[in-house]
């Protein structure tokens, strides 16, 4: 409608200046408007809800913390999303449209995430948002996505117990990481006693609850200690002495942020190293190792779904492209890789639905047959419950900050609401 109006008024305004050429000009304009109308009709076809889709572009949002304490972790994720989008654009875009990005800064502040999500959905009318990192930021933005019927691709491994129509979770939920890791350490290391330690907030606490259930009910082991440290705490002396007193077979750790660095540095300087103690963590990726230092982690294990050192063609191409775009010093952690999947999964769903409409994209996603054979982690498939089928991997850290993958599970079905673990 607006298009027609603009055209008529412009024709009127410019007609007097054109003089004898006006007839010719009018003709050209009419022809131009005719072609425009025909492609506008196509734009309407793929977009019935007024999203920011034109004939040759579609706008998406990226919503991560660029400032504040979470910027450390979220930088990699937004870099990966931009890389994926650039690659999609290079290969012709989505439904013939180039993707344009509007980036907003969540500033490590949860209400800001909600506010910026609203801005992206209501004023910018973006077709999809790639963003959020912590569970707290996702929980804050979730009501906005549900109310405005937006679409969020969330990249972080998290505690599960959530499934929203408006969110696609490209990271692993708790059972895809925790349970398999515990099984592995029980089988391979003969572990019977476990010491659980984490930072004091929702993700470590929920994860440890699942871990304790699994250790006690399924593995028949014992939890000899469970400890939570305030976020940002850097003093682990007393905890380390407690661990020495309990002599657990395995330390199972979910310490995050700055505390993580202090925790591993102090373990090392207290003489607790991999040759004497098995340690399995669910909170260390290549990103964290950069701060902790490979020498402090050498020989310890992480359970993730992706490691940068993974040896397959997809991953080699991904690592090379990432380094080309963001510099040779870049490291790629688990979440960064999961963030990279977001735009590709969205592209697959949009093309399957033949539309950018959120409802249609979600419906296409829920059919459970969207798969990425080009994923750096190997192969992923989208489950109707909005999570990904994925493989759990145990990596052993080397001095250079990279991990050697020592174990790979089968493809695990996502189960965000595991029975008996809540």
């Amino acid at each position, binding site marked *: 409608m607006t298009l027609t109006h603009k055209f008529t008024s412009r024709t009127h305004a410019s007609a007097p200046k054109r003089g004898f050429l006006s007839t010719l000009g009018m003709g050209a304009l009419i022809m131009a408007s005719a072609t425009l109308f025909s492609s506008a009709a196509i734009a309407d076809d793929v977009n019935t809800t007024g999203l920011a889709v034109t004939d040759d572009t579609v706008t998406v949002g990226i919503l991560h913390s660029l400032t504040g304490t979470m910027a450390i972790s979220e930088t990699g994720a937004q870099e990966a999303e931009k890389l994926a989008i650039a690659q999609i654009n290079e290969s012709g875009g989505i439904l013939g449209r180039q993707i344009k990005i509007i980036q907003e800064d969540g500033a490590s502040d949860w209400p800001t995430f909600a506010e910026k999500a609203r801005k992206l959905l209501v004023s910018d009318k973006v077709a999809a948002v790639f963003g959020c990192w912590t569970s707290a930021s996702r929980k804050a933005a979730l009501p906005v996505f549900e109310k405005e019927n937006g679409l969020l691709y969330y990249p972080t491994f998290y505690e599960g117990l959530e499934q929203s129509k408006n969110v696609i979770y490209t990271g692993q939920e708790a059972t895809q990481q925790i349970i398999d890791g515990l099984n592995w350490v029980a089988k391979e290391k003969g572990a019977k006693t476990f010491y659980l330690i984490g930072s004091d907030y929702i993700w470590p606490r929920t994860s440890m609850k699942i871990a304790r259930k699994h250790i006690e009910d399924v593995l028949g082991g014992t939890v000899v200690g469970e400890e939570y440290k305030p976020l940002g705490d850097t003093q682990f002396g007393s905890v380390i002495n*407690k661990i020495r007193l309990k002599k657990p077979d395995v330390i199972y750790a979910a310490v995050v942020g700055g505390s993580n660095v202090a925790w591993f540095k102090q373990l090392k300087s207290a003489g607790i190293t991999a040759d004497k103690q098995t340690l399995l963590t669910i909170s260390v990726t290549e990103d964290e190792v*950069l701060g902790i230092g490979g020498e402090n982690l050498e020989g310890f294990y992480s359970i993730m779904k992706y490691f940068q050192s993974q040896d397959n063609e997809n991953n080699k191409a991904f690592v090379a492209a990432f380094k080309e775009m963001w510099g040779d010093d870049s490291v790629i952690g688990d979440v960064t890789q999961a963030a990279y999947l977001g735009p590709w999964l969205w592209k697959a769903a949009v093309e399957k639905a033949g539309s950018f409409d959120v409802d249609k994209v979600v419906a296409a996603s829920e059919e459970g047959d969207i798969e990425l054979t080009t994923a750096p982690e190997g192969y992923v498939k989208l489950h109707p419950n909005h999570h990904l089928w994925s493989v759990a991997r145990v990596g052993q850290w080397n001095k250079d900050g990279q991990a050697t993958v020592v174990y790979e599970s089968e493809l695990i079905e996502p189960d965000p609401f595991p029975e008996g673990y809540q």
Partner: protein
Amino acid sequence: MDGYTYSELGSILAMQGFAGFSLFSVLLLMALGLAIIFGQMGVINMAHGEFMAVGAYTTYMLSTLTETYAPSLMPYYFFVAIVAAFLIAGLLGYIAEFVLIRHLYKRPLDTLLATWGLSLIMQQSFRSIFGAREVSPALPDWLLGSYQPTDTIDIPLNGMFVLGLTTVVTLGVYYLMFRSRWGLRVRATTQNRVMSGAVGINTTKVDRYTFALGCGIAGIAGAAFTTIASTGPTTGTLYIVDTFMVVVFGGAASLLGTILSAFTIAQAQSILEFFISGSMAKVYTLLALVLILMFKPEGLFASKIRR
């Protein structure tokens, strides 16, 4: 306690004792600079943590430079880094006093807002210069690992180093404040600014150097903490609460108070943490502090300042 020999229990007791001392030295080193600024000048320096981060980043830069240009000097660079951290943080403090703080001496509460603003500016500068990711300097080998007097005792070397450094800095501050002419002027200015001016003390200059000294010591603390934790743009905010806690509990303007307060808080925290969980230990420590401050609002040692 089944399955433990007495020697094992003894070892853990010894290591736990050291953990307490280690925490004590960390708290004291953090608080010294603030105690000087808050205690002697009454300025609430919310950017104290950021000055610590300046020291930490200086250490990081020097470690990178040494690694690139003179790898053979790696075992020694840390001493240079401590001095550089002191000088750079001190210089920045000197500038901050000149540009910002000196205009606000008559409005002590406003220094709180102004220095908080300063801390935000500094955080964003760190982010722009060094990036958002946390960094760790490569440490010389002699700071890594542990000292083993017996088979079952491991004393962290970095903890011993921080303990030693804190002792040296504390003695240095004591000498400066109570045994040097400069310290005499600082104390005189604190006790009666007008009178000090009247007897010929340049109080403006005293203020500026006091502030710079406090920031410089924060820089040393920051350099020392790179051996314990990593450094990021917002590292400073992690320390600021603990730092103020120590200074306020000890009683402003009292060096002995600061030392005792750091010792009490560290031991309480460390012992409680051994028997209950980390978060609860902090809760009980803070609760006890609140109670004590309710009955003794001036802190452990009252300051003798003429207001």
